[in-house]
């Protein structure tokens, strides 16, 4: 029961949104983050624009651990398509994770 509640709470939090400023320059400072942004925009951005919700859920505030996100990318559970190593290499997936982490550290937009 406790576990079910924890899962429910995580899901609820993962479905809320968090927004970043229009001109996000801090994320480009590290090479891996800049590379991650490029790959993210190639494969992920159209459904999670800027990490926000769109066709798919928001990623900017998703509290799931990294290995779960990697699992999701590789296996594409639910409505999300899978991205195997021929489409997103292991290095590229590392870069995407670095980019998403950097986005989380960005300041929030004014409400």
């Amino acid at each position, binding site marked *: 029961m406790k576990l079910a509640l924890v899962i429910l709470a*995580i899901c609820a939090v993962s479905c809320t*949104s968090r927004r970043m*400023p229009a*001109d996000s320059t801090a994320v480009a400072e590290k090479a891996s983050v800049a590379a991650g942004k490029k790959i993210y*925009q190639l494969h992920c951005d*159209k*459904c999670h624009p800027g990490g926000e919700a*769109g066709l798919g859920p928001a990623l900017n505030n998703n509290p799931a651990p990294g290995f779960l996100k990697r699992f*999701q990318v590789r296996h594409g559970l*639910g409505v999300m398509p899978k991205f195997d190593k021929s489409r997103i290499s292991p290095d590229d997936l590392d870069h995407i994770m670095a980019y998403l982490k950097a986005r989380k550290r960005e300041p929030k937009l004014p409400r």
Partner: protein
Amino acid sequence: MKNRALYLVMVVILFASACYQSRHSKGGGQAGADSIRRIHAPDIILPDGYQSEAIATGLNFPTALTFDDKGNAYVIEAGYSYGEDFNTPKLLRISDGKTETIAEGEQNGPWTGIEYHEGNFYIAEGGQRNGGRILKVSPTGKISTLVERLPGQGDHHTNGPAIHNGYIYFGTGTFTNSGVVGPDNAEFGWLKRHPDLHDIPCEDIVLNGINFTTDNPLTPAEGDTAVTGAFLPFNTASQAGQVIPGRLPCSGAILRIPVNGGKPELVAWGLRNPYGLAFSPQGKLYVTENQGDDRGSRPVWGMGDVLWEINPGDWFGWPDFAEGKPIHYFKPPGKHGPSALLRDREKKVPKPAAVLAVHSSSNGIDFSTSGSFGFAGEAFIAQFGDMAAGVGKVLKPVGFKVVRVNTETGEINDFAINRGKVNGPASKRGHGGLERPVSVHFDESGQNLYIVDFGIMLMQKGETRPIRNTGVVWKISKKN
């Protein structure tokens, strides 16, 4: 250990699917929005060093802006909006926040774009009633037709124009979502007006003979069905190997005519709704394409809008490719995957310059040419915003902003967005920022960017409800 693995799988499944399948659509125009248009420029968030102001308000479905050679600003009002709202298209001059009517068109909108060139205005008339036209309008308001009977009576219209090297380039949208006329086109309103219309290829195509059985909204009897094939009128079945002859003017294409008029020439085709056209500072033609929806006889899902570089002779793959990928990539959840409608077409299509958000309705485009404004060489694109749930489900509003795109790298960055915890149009967020940006235009100096904001369009109870006289023109400039 076994239990832990089970729980892990449960967590993954919950993260992956529960959030999507069990949630209702929350598009920008859906319930919760009101019809009050507030204007408050500080609600628009821009990069540091930029400022915004409203220079014209209360406009009736404005779609595009241009300047004459004296620097006067002109805006067009569409004269038609989705939701079957027909009124009179107008060319207005903006001066000190007021507008003066220069020309009025026929009720055959929407007027989708305008360009000033060597003393005259050139307007793309969408053609919802009688087919699209390219119009030439003198400074005194005299209207003449350069080309007519262009595809435009369907879901999408005649778009553009962009003038380059003595030619007017324009786009013709497709009649349908994905190649097959269906009940969704009756909901748009046009199928009952024009039951014989269908998509027109630019060159001969061969069909695979796939047909779609649907309700028949053209007959009063309940339970009546219709069987329809691709590129054919509603309730007309196709045969395997059937050839559909190509002809001009065709739908889903970029065409051009000489500036003084003439027969349309084919530039490129296989596009769904090529909306915004602009030449880069290097003279390359770029086009924004609105991509497919989860609706109709052949629904598709997850197609991002696209920025394309157009080269003469290109075929971009519609209705069997999107974003440069085959159609089977775009299977809607819980529905059958779409199959290819065409036989013997090329297996390779061009790669997009950039893929933009699904359902963002990425429309008008212009290039920054000024180092002092910044981002020189980048494309600025107005995102009208989603029309969910009519086009399919979104979990949060998509679009409703202006983005900038580096056409060399495909990198996309927000430029003008609304403040707030969640994205969306100003009326939904309860403030006075952007509503539905439909086009962007730099003035001659390149130091000011103008955003044409269509105004409020609600998507409620299965209906599209545009609200008249809620359009705005915003000016973006660098702070001194």
